[in-house]
């Protein structure tokens, strides 16, 4: 049995399989097995497999699905794939969508069946044009073959799948903002509870999961819980698509057992640092995850271990920071992004991030002022979880928090430089 179930069917040149090829490679077997099962048994399977959400939060998928009311027949339910991969430094879902679109479709049908959702949406990042094109082609094939539409494969289960290409806002990756956006409204997050499983898309029970999470589902159905848990190096089940960007020799995406140590990913798969560059720090799971440093190189990259080290596994795509990169400049770049992508709904995020960005810009230009570090620290405090409305602001200040702790000297220099030059 495969140890890289998610990527094994992806060809070297990334051209996707046709439906026929996909079936020949064992595709849609998971669907056939699923349609023979009781829907709630699939959810139970996911719980046992300990599949955790690959979008960044690591919430147990089976548990999430178990909150969907299964006796509610008063209207539609929805399964929604979050394919709005906009986290800076993250490109893992793109590989799955472009390389194996039928896997995505199969995952949507199985997942829809499990929660008895008759409608599915793939909410795709607008810039993923190639993925959109390939998904459309595959969806047409699937529809033609009776895999989508009324009475899927004679099972009595109806499933409509729609592709929605986003107009392009980072906040659309937040599951409730995604729902608002999908409804044609401003992409503003919603307060929880109630969770989308109760009151989701158009006010109806809905499940939103990440591409990679969902793609695991048909494999678990087909190969079973034990296989899935054995793929892993940790308590979390399955593999993980890790990635690396920055000045490494072999940037890319690698499917590895979840819990693979950071050093292994960095040195064996990413090929280590390029000549002339030293490792300085890493954002382990995209731009919104707090920094890890040299001291953390032997950390196992699973949700709990990274959490204990003060960061988050996030999307598992490493943003590698080298010794020639200015931490202040890096942070200015990141906070510019987060300030710009604030939806503007809550005050701390909307007005706080903008202030942070402006201070960092002046620091980068050598015009920091005494007291700026304290203002930044206050923002780290006041933009934390529960203070801002959603996770955007806490995510935005995570890297800043660690940067101020691990590389405070660089911030101090940015102020001292200005003071020396006679600034105020």
């Amino acid at each position, binding site marked *: 049995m495969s140890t890289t179930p998610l990527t094994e069917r992806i060809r070297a040149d990334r051209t996707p399989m046709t439906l026929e090829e996909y079936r020949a490679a064992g595709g849609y077997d998971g669907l056939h097995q699923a349609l023979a099962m009781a829907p709630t048994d699939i959810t139970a399977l996911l719980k046992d497999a300990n599949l955790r959400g690959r979008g960044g939060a690591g919430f147990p998928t089976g548990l999430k699905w178990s909150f969907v009311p299964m006796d509610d027949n*008063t*209207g539609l339910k929805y399964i929604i794939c979050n394919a709005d991969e906009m986290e800076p430094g993250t490109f893992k879902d793109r590989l799955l969508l472009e390389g194996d679109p039928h896997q995505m479709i199969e995952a949507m049908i199985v997942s829809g069946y499990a929660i008895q959702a008759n409608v599915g949406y793939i909410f795709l990042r607008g810039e993923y044009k190639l993925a959109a094109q390939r998904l459309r082609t595959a969806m047409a094939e699937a529809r033609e073959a009776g895999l989508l539409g009324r009475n899927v494969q004679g099972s009595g289960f109806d499933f409509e799948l729609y592709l929605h290409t986003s107009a392009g*806002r980072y906040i659309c990756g937040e599951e409730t903002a995604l729902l608002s956006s999908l409804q044609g409204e*401003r992409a503003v997050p*919603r*307060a929880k*509870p*109630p969770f989308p499983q*109760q*009151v989701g898309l*158009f*006010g*109806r029970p809905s499940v939103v999961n990440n591409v990679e999470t969902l793609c695991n589902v048909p494999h678990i159905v087909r190969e079973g819980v034990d296989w899935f848990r054995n793929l892993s190096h940790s308590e979390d089940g399955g593999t993980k698509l890790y990635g690396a960007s920055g000045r490494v020799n072999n940037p890319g995406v690698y499917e590895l057992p979840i819990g693979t140590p950071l050093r292994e990913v960095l040195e064996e798969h990413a090929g280590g640092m390029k000549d002339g560059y030293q490792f300085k720090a890493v954002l382990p799971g995209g731009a919104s995850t707090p920094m890890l440093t040299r001291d953390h190189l032997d950390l196992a990259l699973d949700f709990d271990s990274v959490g204990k080290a003060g960061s988050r596994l996030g999307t598992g795509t490493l943003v590698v920071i080298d010794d020639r990169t200015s931490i202040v400049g890096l942070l200015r770049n990141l906070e510019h992004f987060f*300030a*710009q*992508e*604030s*939806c*503007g*709904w*809550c*005050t*701390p995020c*909307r*007005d*706080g*991030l*903008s*202030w942070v960005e*402006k201070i960092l810009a002046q620091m980068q230009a050598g015009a920091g*002022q005494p*007291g700026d570090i304290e*203002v930044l620290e*206050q923002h780290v405090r*006041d933009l934390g979880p*529960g*203070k*801002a*409305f959603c996770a955007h602001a806490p995510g935005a200040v995570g890297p800043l928090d660690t940067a101020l702790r691990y590389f405070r000297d660089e911030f101090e220099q940015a102020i001292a430089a200005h003071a020396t030059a006679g600034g105020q």
Partner: protein
Amino acid sequence: MAIIYVDGRPIEADENTNLLQACLQAGLDLPYFCWHPALGSVGSCRQCAVTQYQDENDDQGQLVMACMTPAAEGTRITLADESSSDFRASIIEWMMTNHPHDCPVCEEGGECHLQDMTVMTGHNYRRYRFNKRTFRNQDLGPFIGHEMNRCITCYRCVRFYNDYAGGTDLAALGQRNQVYFGRHEDGPLENEFSGNLAEVCPTGVFTDKPLGERYTRKWDLRSAPSVCTHCSLGCNTSPGERYGVLKRVQNRYNGDVNGYFLCDRGRFGYDFVNSDERIRRPRMRGPDGRTDMDAGELLERMAQMAEGTSLIGIGSPRASVETNFALQQLVGEANFSTGLSAAEQRRVELAREILAEGPVATPPMRETENADAVLVLGEDVTATAPRLALSLRQSVRNAGFERAAELQVPSWRDATVRELERHHRSPLFQVVPWATRLDDTARYNLYRRPEAIARLGHAVAHAIDPDAPEPVGLSASEADHAADIAETLKQAQRPLVVSGTGAHSEAVLHAAANVARALHRCHAQPEQVGITLTLPEANSLGQALLGGEDLDTALERAAAGGHTLVVAENDLARRADGDRVRQAFRASRQVIVLDHLENETTDQASAVLPAGTFAEADGTLVNNEGRAQRFFQVFEPDPVIQESWRWLVALAWSLDAETEMLWWSQLDQVIETCSRSCPELGGIVDAAPRADHRVQGLRAAREPARYSGRTAMDAAVSVHEPGPPRDEDTPMTFTMEGYGGPGHTDPNLIATTWSPGWNSEQSVNKFQAEINGAMAGGNQGRRLIEPAGASDWYPAVPEEDGEGWRALPYHAFFGSEELSAASGPIRERVAEAWLGVAPEVLEERGLDEGTEFELRLDDVSVRLPVRALEGLAMDCVAVPVGLTDLPDHRLPADCELIGPEAN
């Protein structure tokens, strides 16, 4: 009730509310922006953060937003700890990063919620050293100013305008700290409730534009508790004056009537008081034309002219009970006319009969928001009773609240409840003559001619209760509609029937009364059934209670010759054919008219007396609910302008009339006599405190304690400070002397709310017994009518559908109401005269809107551009009341419509 602990102190809280509301209810000061008592919680501004503890052993606590946290039994919070206090100050600091330092020149300054909350949090030092973002402002029309740089992005404007009021042309645009609240392009805000933005906006982004153009600070305005005169609902208002100019009207909270909101006609219609068309001097028409004259001399001449004549008095549904009663006293009951055309009088009297003698009570307007099924029969509510439309819009939310309760989502969690409303909306049906602004709330709208509306209404009544008369000639599809509506209303717990006089149809009123009666008979809790009827004018129901002959009869008598005609605040040309009025006037020895504005009637009068408007007089109005409410004089005009009832007393003196009214010198005497001699109006004495009422030994002050410049404002005229004007009629002073404190005064005497640390209208929470509930001391006004239950079914004999064209009255939101149409800002929104036809009429002929058609109504004809009116029957023409030269009082009427034939 739950007990929650705030800084260790136990506080009683309604467990169905949130911590913010509970704290405010308890009189605590906790700052907030995005929350609004009528709009609920969304958790966007993060201003009301408090620290919540798990239990008494928890000394860490966690920051929570008070507005998003239920006031559950045993909840422990602190407002005083450093961490939540600092966070709240941070929120203000963030908002201030982009807020201009323009308080001294900002219209909101001095009554700004943002100022108040800033002071409350203690933030006062600016650390942010970067440039502020700037926006381009928009021209949003004559009502609302726009200054986006001041925006703190609380989202209240769009939540009110779109979510609450159903507007579609205001949006949040953009992202990050550049969110822009505006229209897609410059242009007047289209929603009928746009003026509320000036109060809903916590700072100076959306402001009262007419006020801004002749600006006065809140503390320099003299205000009085008042009642809107621009429709029959009696919304409570707070008009403010300075330098003899009425500067604005603000909402005055009445938990039973208008709550927090007014319509734009009510808010901006006041400016007729300042009009150039005002009658400001007594005058006489002599052989040499009009002559302004001293009042004493004029009264003497009128007395001479009156010798040997008998009096006929014509009152008015837009004049107060006191004015009408004084006129009735002057001329004698037998010679008093209500001033309503015969047809209108029949309709208003019928409405009175339905409310007073039928079995079904009419709910206060706020209670209509609780209805869980509504049938609107024949009435374009937004046009004739706008604020009621806003309440009905809320009624359809009840199913969403119920669904939320099932999911354990509190009703105040606004964003979530609104999601649920997509699939859970309480039914509202409209059977109306054309598409209305409430259509989007309805389960479905049926557009019918008035006769068909009545017939369908009767069918609904019959379907509910087979004892109700059955209409004849009902088609199968109409019967299906009737059955569906009937079934839904029957299943409702709190069904409501809404109708009114707008269609000028007694048959429609009959049908509405029968539906209500049928529901009442079938309902397990009959007292939960309601009927709401809208009426033509502010005191229409008061006139019905006072009684008197109709205008047509009075004019007929006058035409016999030899009378002295006294007309109080009534332009007869709007209610009777011009020829008949002229004939009656010519036949009369003299015509004495008391009014505010020049009109056709004053133009023909032999003597005209300048009558005080609602802002220059006190009086009582009876709204469509039968609630008597007192409006108080705001300011002392030029002394020659007097209350109509005072002119009538003066007239009684000069005529040597033998009447008790000779001894009236105070309003209370008029009220008491009226209450004694007209039992149906007996309750008006309780509508507000008497003139000898005192608050802590003091009269209530009309001017705030900080009123400035009173010794200087007239210094250019005289260096002697005039004595303060005396008010014999009310327990109020015209000056700042007197009681101005919060909380303890009679709610009928509270003009504006103001409390330490709370300078904006948000301070109303300090004056309510319960937030969103009644005012401390009870709600304003006194209900005069409760159903006696004696009347029977009305017969189901709607008129036959006639053949040929039929002209129907169309009430334009702006322009059809007489007084507001003379208000400057409203005038900018009044359309040129037009005629409405079905879109199909234009399509069939290949014509565009704006094509001129000729409408002939008996002897009168007009040529006007047409508009397509969706839903209007193909053989009907809609005539906007008050906008054309057609005799509106004759509508509905058979007519001829002549237009270009097909191209």
